[in-house]
């Protein structure tokens, strides 16, 4: 806008809020949180809101509009960092209770109120919008409305579980709250969450017209309230719980179950009491380990993204060599996320196949044909490799062969433009070996994606001995620019993720070799909280690939490659891609396992798999592959899907205690051999810090099992690992 609307006076102004009156006597309440790129409802922002309300009432406006002063969006939610401060249920309860009168105050204003929503409107932000009489959303791809709290192990606490069902109906609201999914502006209009969806140019006129005409605010229809009718309510709750238990067991993810409990129990209860119950429930969740772990993962994930922000130049052009599954999918993903991508391969059919896959992916991601066309136009076949000279990042994704990679990279190196970096997507070859052919190994970095690229949020930024800080930063910048999370890892066989996964997968295979059925092994892992069992994972990745990675990792000779794996590869049973691995596959669907499907898992089966995993995690930490425990944990969760509610392998170790683990490993070593010998790194892990936290925690909280970890102690540099 070149010319701003005329505002007559400003009856209230504080650090984060201001109220302006316009010539129609409409109050424009603007939130613009100081020192933050997004509006967040932190304690002092909410306190100011409480102070603002009397001035707003005193101004006697014809109506009030709540809007954001930021381009990034409306309100992103409550301040999650504050959540981590709660040590006791009482603390959490007191803090959230303070918000209730403020929000009820907005709800009870005796003039029409509108929330004008552009961009994200999430969590507490949506709960605030729910207190207004009307909601108007800007028709933007960035406009997202949702209550994502369950993803953090909690649920809405500012009245969202009470107000949302009243507006959009019981089942629609429960679906939104239980899944935590956010809706586009159009979808929100469809379910009645917003009254109007208009482009920016119509926002203020729509808002003004709503205040002027003040129609009866929307409410859910009778049929939408049917699920809450007497007798029906309890059976709906029963079915919802049953469905939920399969996806998110109560013991692991209590929050969504608490939402159903709240909903079921509120049948004959006054509204104010419903708010109270919601607060009590969320306060209990806050101090639980699931919420603490999920919140920690979220914050660490944000920290990871920050690693890729604030670079000198924004990377805009990527050149990929190798249009195989990985190279092609990386190229497609990057093109979709705004990069101009040149894709080089001597085999033109491979490039054509990539384009075909890319179009399929883009069509899943969006229905807007203009966005699809623009992304396809940015994905440029480049047989001759002209793109090298123009790219900010040149990424090699050819087959895993040291000499071929050395030759290719050495040929491209002199063509790079100033400031560009050279990268490899190798999953197993040491960076230092590849870099031998390069004149400027400081500009060389590993950028290691996981398959499938469009679904795996983690990218390992592999740091070779000579990789410069600038290049690492550029690698992280690139990763963040394409909406992936960068995890800097030290170069070494398997880097972090593959190295940690491999002993766990082998142990799974070993269990099968010993007579356990693949189903039993997979189920044990799933019960632990893994998204997919190890045997199925091996089938999906491909047995041949696992075997080749295994051989590269097996330089120490410690992890013996299971003979069963070699045996199956020899018989060309390579997994899902060949229709048979440990399981049979019909049209890509998993059938029965090839071995005796009744074999039981030994009692220590699950322990053996995860003992192998945590032992390798400690080895990685000790070797300095990643020297930040929080980033390591977050990386493993993002990269392997490791049970998120456990917060990552290090959090998991800490919860059970280092000593306990060493004892367990030693016992396993006795019965099953050297592969369980506790890594020397266990001894360097700071046990005292962990014990110290447990003890203090125990004193101050009223929940025995909640153990928020003192990460500061944990992050203490460990001698000899840098």
């Amino acid at each position: 806008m070149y010319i701003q609307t005329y505002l007559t006076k400003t009856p209230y102004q504080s650090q984060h809020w201001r109220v302006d009156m316009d010539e129609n006597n409409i109050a424009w309440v603007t939130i613009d949180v100081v020192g933050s790129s997004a509006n967040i409802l932190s304690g002092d922002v909410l306190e100011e809101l409480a102070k603002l309300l009397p001035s707003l009432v005193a101004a006697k406006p014809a109506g009030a509009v709540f809007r954001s002063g930021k381009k990034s969006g409306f309100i992103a939610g409550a301040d999650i960092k504050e959540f981590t401060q709660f040590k006791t249920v009482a603390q959490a309860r007191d803090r959230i209770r303070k918000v209730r009168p403020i929000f009820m105050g907005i709800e009870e204003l005796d003039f029409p109120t509108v929330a004008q929503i552009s961009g994200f409107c999430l969590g507490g932000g949506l709960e605030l919008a729910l207190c207004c009489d009307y909601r108007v959303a800007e028709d933007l791809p960035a406009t997202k409305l949702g209550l994502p709290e369950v993803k953090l192990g909690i649920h809405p606490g500012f009245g969202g579980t009470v107000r949302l069902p009243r507006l959009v109906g019981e089942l629609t609201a429960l679906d939104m709250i239980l899944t935590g999914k956010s809706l586009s502006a159009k979808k929100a209009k469809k379910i009645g969450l917003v009254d109007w969806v208009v482009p920016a140019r119509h926002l203020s006129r729509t808002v003004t017209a709503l205040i002027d005409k003040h129609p009866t605010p929307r409410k859910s229809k009778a049929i939408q309230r049917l699920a809450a009718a007497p007798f029906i309510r309890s059976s709906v709750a029963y079915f919802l719980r049953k469905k939920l238990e399969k996806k998110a067991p109560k013991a692991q993810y209590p929050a969504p179950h608490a939402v159903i409990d709240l909903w079921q129990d509120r049948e004959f209860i006054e509204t104010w009491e419903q708010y109270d119950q919601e607060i009590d429930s969320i306060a209990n969740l806050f101090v639980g380990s699931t919420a603490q772990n999920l919140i920690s993962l979220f914050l660490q994930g944000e920290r990871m993204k920050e690693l890729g922000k604030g670079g000198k130049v924004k990377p805009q052009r990527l050149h990929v060599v190798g249009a195989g599954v990985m190279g092609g999918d990386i190229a497609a993903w990057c093109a979709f996320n705004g990069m101009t991508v040149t894709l080089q391969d001597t085999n033109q059919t491979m490039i054509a196949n990539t384009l075909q896959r890319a179009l399929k992916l883009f069509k899943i991601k969006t229905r807007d044909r203009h966005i699809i066309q623009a992304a396809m136009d940015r994905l440029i076949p480049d047989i001759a490799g002209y793109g090298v000279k123009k790219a900010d990042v040149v990424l090699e994704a050819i087959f895993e062969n040291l000499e071929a990679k050395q030759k290719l990279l050495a040929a491209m190196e002199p063509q790079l433009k100033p400031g560009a970096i050279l990268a490899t997507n190798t999953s197993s070859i040491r960076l230092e070996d590849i870099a031998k052919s390069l004149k400027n190994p400081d500009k060389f970095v590993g950028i290691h994606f996981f398959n499938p690229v469009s679904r795996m949020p983690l990218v390992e930024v592999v740091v070779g001995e000579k990789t410069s800080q600038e290049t690492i930063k550029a690698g992280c910048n690139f990763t963040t620019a394409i909406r992936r999370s960068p995890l800097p890892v030290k170069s070494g066989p398997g880097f972090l993720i593959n190295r940690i996964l491999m002993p766990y997968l082998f142990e799974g295979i070993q269990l099968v070799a010993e007579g356990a059925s693949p189903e039993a092994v997979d189920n044990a892992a799933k019960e632990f909280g893994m998204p997919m069992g190890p045997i199925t994972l091996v089938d999906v990745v491909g047995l041949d690939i696992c075997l080749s990675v295994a051989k590269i990792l097996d330089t120490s000779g410690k992890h013996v490659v299971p003979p069963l794996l070699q045996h199956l590869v020899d018989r060309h049973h390579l997994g899902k891609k060949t229709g048979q691995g440990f399981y049979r596959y019909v049209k890509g669907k998993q059938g029965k396992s090839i071995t005796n499907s009744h074999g039981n898992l030994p009692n220590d089966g699950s322990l053996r798999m995860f003992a192998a995993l945590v032992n390798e995690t400690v080895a990685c930490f000790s070797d300095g592959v990643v020297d930040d425990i929080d980033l390591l944990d977050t990386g493993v969760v993002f990269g392997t899907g490791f049970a998120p509610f456990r917060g990552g392998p290090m959090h998991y170790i800490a919860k059970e205690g280092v000593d306990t683990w060493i004892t367990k490993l030693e016992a396993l070593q006795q019965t099953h051999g050297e592969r369980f010998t506790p890594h020397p790194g266990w001894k360097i892990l700071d046990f005292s810090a962990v014990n110290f936290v447990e003890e203090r925690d125990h004193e101050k909280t009223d929940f025995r099992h909640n153990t928020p970890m003192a990460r500061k102690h944990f992050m203490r540099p460990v001698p000899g690992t840098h």
Partner: protein
Amino acid sequence: MNIINKNTKAKDSPVYVVDGCRTPFLTTRGQANPFSAADLAVAAGRPLLLRQPFAADEIEEVILGCVIPAPDEVNIARVASLRLGCNIKTPAWTVQRNCASGMQALDTAVRNIQGGHSGLILAGGVEAMSRAPLQWRPKLVEWMSGWLKARSLKAKLQSLASLSIKELRPVITLLKGLTDPSTGLSMGQTAEELAYEFAIDRHAMDQFALASQNRLEKAQKDGLFNEEITPLFSHDGAVIKDDQGLHPGSNIKKLSKLKPVFDRPTGLVTAGNSAQITDGACWLLLADEATVKRLNLKPLGKITPASWAGLNPAQMGLGPVHAIDSLLKEYKTPFDSVDYWEINEAFAAQVIACTHAMDNPEYCKHELDKKDKPWGRIAPDRLNVDGGAISIGHPVSASGARIVLHLLHLLKRTKTKRGVAAICIGGGQGGAMLAEAV
């Protein structure tokens, strides 16, 4: 106020062709190809811009010739320009002179560079003939407005009864476009006309067509188009590397069996000795001397503005003769100094007629006002030496740009100096351009 543009350059200041690129030309085989005209323009333009040492931002103007853009490709030059990543501030416009739209784009670009308006222009032509739309007949449109107004059941039934089945047949706009609007002759019929005037028999036509096929086959085998063509990647996973109009193993016997298409049953012009209906795009990058130096470019050659000429629409195929006549006169170029000729092969009869007319004292005297002696005979081994539109295809607007681009590559390859590219234009015109090696 000084209104004289200080940038104005001399009329004959050199204009360089920096580089050029085209798609393979795709035959239609009765159904629409998977590429729209803009898709083709983007596919040809992306590798061209990619291999330049400068960024797309440097381009100061985009000019594209196109006769039948899709309805959602209004001002297709702008659509292509933005999709290619040219600067939003770079003006882009579409030109149309029927079959010579691609040459028109080059002509305009040359003139704008010589006029000092632009230093670096992306110009070319594109056509997706397989996507030419079908239209409703005006009577059907009229009926539909009546149908929409009919409210009651009775009125609806009455309206329905008034509809004639015949009106449901769509108008094939491609055929309309290939019919001369002033005489009603189809393009093929104008070729029949020339065959009659110059006594060209069926055998000569088929021989010419066969030569076109054979020359293309050899050129493809020798990889002569490698620098000119970029492979097309279709989104269903297919790669198209070469012009699809080639019929390997053509022979005179097969060609002579084909039935006449335009004048049945005694006509001579067949599908085999006519240009094929095809889809394709071709771009050239044109620059002035200062830009060539500033960006350190290595030009392919130089071109002049086009010379244009009009003639009897019923003999539109002789357009090249008239255009070449004024071109050679304007640039005082001796006929014998021309090393290679590219005369677009709309029809075998039409190109043969052109060579006859150039060499015919009567025609030169009366029609070209060249009284001393005829221009001369264009040697067959100097004309369309790597095949022409009969084999390669004739995506209307792209052809004018293609023959210029190919001529420049040919001069470079044979280390010769000068060539002429000429094209006939439906409606009774011709265009010709002089190309020189640097």
